[in-house]
């Protein structure tokens, strides 16, 4: 039982954190469109759900605090309170505080913030209730809602639809009760359709003005609980009747008139059948009147049946619940197991090849296909849209630009681009550094921008796009751009370069990735300490990615991160150089050709002519200092490195290989050209080559195309 309670509380925490994340995004969206009723309702619903769940799980402090915010958004929802920047800021602060409350005990500072926020919200809501219009005047939004009592296309999961049958006693008016006020109150609780019954209104001579003869059915879709609806009628006299029924929307959405009348106990099913049997069908009438032929009617009916059937099948095919929540730990375990299975499959493949048994080969191939399919599905499960972290940066830019007295808009593009969960998790810190830098150093102060003829509002764009097996993430600002001369001066001052060095601007920019390098003379709370960019590069490189800079003075800077889609399993090409085996990521491989042996034995790098195109290459035997010489024709594996191609000379190309990436020990960290290792079918280890770093070796040795 205890375990069950723990599990339930765990679910509450997971859902609450999800809701708080959603709340942040919704609030930032609401700030952009403060009139958007859908967003207002979304914020209200989130606060309402957090309050309800927190109360249910005994987090009374969270529940009572959330109540204050919910009250404010209830007023916003009913059009009595405007969405202001101050309200959004207070709600964002409250959202952070709720997170802290859920994490544990509040510090003295947190308690002070809590008191401040409660006072602020009370002030907002009290001020509003003083200005509340007299009850008979409806706010425009409520009136709009009442005047168009249509059922929404989709109601929130937490909402329920009730049928309320309200039969006031005839003496209700005499007791001073106002039925219209009750109907008004119900209308404010959600979306209401009010149906009046006039059947009991007597003749003109018999009518007594102080008596109430009208009764109502109210169909109300609301997030409020049944007892809250009952509370509306709490002061009714005993003779008045109120019946509240919950309607099953799913069941009733296709209900016909007769079924609703039966459900309301107004008529029996037999009576319905009797009357229906008397009713002539439209097709029969049209045929009798010689307007259309029987064949035409039959054809139209057949078409109608077909459409019904297709629609029915479509509904059946739609999964009722298309997602389940699985802990990331379990997912990681699954990936490990699939990795082991892939290694096992490779070993089995090797043995099968050695045994030369056609039956075994056929079974192995079938098994391999299944394992590969399982691998792809499992890898797909780890893919998440990068928007899951992108949305956090809206808040970062909002708060930072306010602190720095700048006005900056963050544009997000490609949020739906998917990447491996592990890559996304490790990407957060580098992105935070880059965005902070763009906001602080990149975008100028509004007066400086205006003086340069730019728009006073700065612009930072965060975008993600797929590029083969990589994802390119770009953080681009329209600020001042990097100043090559300042960087050169700072580089000389720090002894990284000398005044005599003739260094191209692009290489100078690389200096900003050196530890402690900053051209900013002023250290702010945000940036300027020179800590960050080196961490950015280190983190990106550890993910198997790269960082490049595109900048133009006065126009802005872009940092482009190139990251692999996944870090777990890749398709590789197995090659042999001497006795060593290496894996080249298959997504980088362009083609394999025979090497004509033009390179000298001791050469590390040179050029090769591939159908008229001169490509630089690395002789891996020389680069890795592998002893012995080949006594056969070598091969060149041509690989893509971002925009250019290079060749890698190997002894033999073995073939494709499912590569489960294992990290290298620290001993190998300093060696350029390795990105990991994998275990082969026979238990030996193969090094995975880092194509990007190998091409860097070529750049360093300054090989020029002929």
């Amino acid at each position: 039982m205890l375990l069950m309670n723990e599990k339930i509380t765990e679910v509450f925490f997971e859902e609450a954190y999800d809701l708080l994340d959603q709340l942040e995004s919704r609030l930032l969206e609401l700030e952009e469109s403060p009139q958007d009723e859908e967003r207002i309702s979304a914020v209200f619903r989130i606060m309402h759900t957090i309050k309800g769940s927190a109360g249910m799980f005994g987090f009374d402090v969270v529940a009572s605090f959330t109540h204050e915010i919910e009250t404010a958004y209830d007023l916003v929802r009913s059009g009595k309170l405007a969405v202001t920047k101050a309200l959004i800021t207070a709600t964002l602060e409250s959202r952070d505080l709720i997170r802290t409350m859920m994490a544990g005990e509040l510090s003295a500072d947190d308690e002070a913030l809590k008191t401040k926020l409660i006072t602020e919200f009370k002030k907002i809501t009290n001020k509003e209730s003083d200005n509340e219009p007299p009850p008979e005047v409806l706010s425009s939004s409520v009136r709009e809602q009442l005047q168009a009592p249509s059922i929404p296309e989709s109601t929130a999961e937490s909402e329920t639809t009730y049928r309320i049958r309200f039969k006031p006693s005839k003496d209700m008016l005499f007791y001073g009760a106002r039925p219209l006020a009750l109907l008004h109150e119900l209308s404010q609780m959600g979306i209401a359709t009010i149906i009046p019954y006039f059947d009991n209104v007597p003749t003109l001579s018999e009518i007594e003005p102080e008596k109430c003869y009208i009764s109502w059915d109210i169909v109300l879709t609301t997030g409020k609980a049944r007892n809250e609806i009952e509370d509306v009628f709490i002061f009714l006299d005993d003779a008045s009747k109120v019946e509240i029924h919950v309607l099953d929307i799913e069941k009733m959405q296709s209900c016909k008139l007769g079924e609703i009348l039966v459900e309301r106990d107004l008529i029996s099913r037999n009576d319905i059948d009797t009357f229906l049997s008397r009713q002539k069908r439209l097709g029969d009438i049209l045929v009798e009147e010689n307007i259309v032929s029987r064949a035409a009617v039959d054809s139209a009916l057949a078409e109608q049946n077909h459409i019904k059937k297709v629609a029915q099948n479509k509904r059946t095919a739609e999964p009722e619940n298309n997602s389940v929540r699985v802990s990331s730990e379990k997912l990681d375990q699954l990936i490990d197991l699939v990795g082991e299975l892939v290694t096992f499959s490779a070993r089995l493949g090797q043995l099968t090849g050695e045994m030369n048994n056609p039956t075994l080969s056929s079974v192995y191939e079938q098994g391999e296909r299944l394992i590969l399919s399982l691998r792809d599905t499992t890898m797909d499960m780890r893919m998440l849209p990068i928007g899951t972290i992108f949305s956090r940066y809206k808040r970062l830019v909002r708060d930072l630009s306010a602190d720095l007295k700048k006005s900056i808009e963050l544009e997000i593009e490609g949020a739906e681009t998917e990447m491996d969960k592990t890559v996304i998790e490790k990407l957060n810190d580098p992105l935070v550094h880059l965005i902070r830098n763009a906001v602080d150093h990149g975008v100028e102060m509004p007066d400086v921008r205006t003086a340069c003829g730019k728009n006073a509002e700065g612009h930072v764009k965060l975008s993600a796009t797929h590029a083969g097996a990589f994802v390119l993430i770009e953080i681009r600002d329209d600020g001042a751009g990097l100043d090559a001369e300042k960087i050169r001066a700072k580089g000389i001052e720090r002894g990284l370069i000398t005044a005599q060095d003739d260094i191209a601007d692009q290489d100078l920019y690389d200096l900003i990735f050196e530890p402690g390098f900053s051209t900013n003379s002023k250290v702010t709370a945000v940036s300027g300490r020179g800590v960050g960019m080196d961490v950015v590069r280190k983190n990106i490189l550890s993910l198997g990615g790269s960082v490049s800079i595109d900048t133009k003075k006065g126009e802005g800077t872009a940092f482009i991160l190139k990251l692999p889609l996944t870090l777990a399993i890749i398709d590789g090409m197995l090659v042999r150089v001497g006795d060593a085996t290496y894996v080249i990521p298959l997504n980088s491989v362009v083609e394999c050709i025979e090497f004509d042996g033009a390179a000298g034995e001791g050469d590390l790098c040179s050029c090769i002519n591939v159908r008229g195109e001169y490509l630089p290459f690395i002789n891996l035997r020389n680069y890795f200092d592998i002893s012995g010489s080949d006594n056969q024709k070598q091969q060149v594996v041509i690989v893509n490195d971002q925009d250019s191609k290079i060749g890698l000379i190997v002894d033999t190309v073995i073939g494709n290989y499912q590569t489960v990436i294992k990290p290298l020990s620290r001993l190998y960290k300093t060696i350029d050209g390795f990105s990991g290792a994998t275990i082969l079918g026979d238990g030996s280890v193969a090094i995975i080559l880092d194509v990007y770093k190998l091409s860097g070796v070529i750049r360093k040795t300054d090989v020029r195309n002929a």
Partner: protein
Amino acid sequence: MNAGMNPNLKNVAWTNPLTVEYALQNRELFDSLLFENSGFVLDISDVPKLDITGIQLIIAVYQESVRKNKIFDITGSFNSAISAELVACGVTPQNWMSWKEYFTKLNTPAQGKDVAHE
């Protein structure tokens, strides 16, 4: 209103707040209007407030007109002064026209204006 269909029909403007206080007097007035004429048109454009008493009275007048085979019609737009009450009662701009049809057997022109109560 289609002008010229029934020139003898009275057009009565409803200007008082139709609450219990006035309802009995108005009931008498409407009854006599139905008795003495071929019917009448009730103009609700200027009624300051239309509450349940008023709505019930309209229903009763309509039912009486049907029984006596007289004409009863309502004129006046769905104005803001009365909309809140009508909306709360289930009448909306969308079904307002059908309400008018419900009360009206024959469209009749307005001929002069009497005042329901002063």
